[in-house]
């Protein structure tokens, strides 16, 4: 499983991306978030601490999920980006679209 989920306080869910977030598995992540929203989860932290790389389909999936969560009155945050992944978000200016935290604990604490 490339994604691990765990429940957190305040109707929040932590999703950890292992390996990569790419065209091959982006729908799986979107489905996890969609299913959780239908169960009442409103706040999400996507943790990239163990992630090697993300392609543009993965970035697009994050944008799509973030929009959907916001439209439902929720919040989707990113955490654990290493220097390379962080530079990818800066390159694409997606660092201006997402709330990005150093660690998942910091992201969850802000809810």
């Amino acid at each position: 499983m490339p994604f691990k989920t765990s429940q957190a306080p305040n109707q929040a869910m932590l999703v950890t991306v292992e390996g990569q977030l790419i065209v091959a598995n982006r729908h799986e992540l979107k489905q996890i978030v969609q299913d959780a929203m239908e169960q009442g989860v409103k706040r999400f932290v996507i943790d990239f601490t163990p992630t090697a790389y993300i392609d543009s389909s993965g970035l697009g999936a994050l944008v799509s999920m973030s929009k959907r969560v916001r439209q439902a009155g929720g919040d989707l945050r990113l955490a654990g980006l290493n220097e390379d992944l962080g530079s990818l978000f800066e390159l694409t200016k997606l660092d201006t679209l997402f709330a990005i935290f150093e660690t998942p604990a910091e992201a969850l604490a802000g809810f």
Partner: protein
Amino acid sequence: MLSPNRIPPSDTDAGERYRVELPTDLSRVGEVVDSVCSCCFSETSPTARTRFRLSTVLAEAVANAMLYGNDSDPARRVIIEVSLESDRLVIAVSDEGDGFDHRVVPQPLDEESIEATRGRGLFVIHHLSDTVAFNERGNTIWMTLPRH
């Protein structure tokens, strides 16, 4: 298992060359990226940055070849060729489609494009590769990256 095969050397070859081909199947993108990276770095110790750059641009190029070049047709194949030169890697990704106008690179940084869910792939390839080139038809992309 997708393992690149060594291409017999010719007189003009500057380094070792490998080739792998696979059907249009998005579920195999991660596998072929891992396989090509292992081939490229079997005799070197690349920096984390180099590994990240190769993984990312290769995933982008293979996905583009499958989705747009081959129009998601599982009967069409994607071919990856790698040249291991002394200081650099040359990666070629080809599809069996009609090609596209590679002179038009989407600009995903425009204000109205920031929240777009697609259109960043070529932009990322151009920024993470040292050089990018296409054949005239537009169905082969060459990318060069450092080997270390």
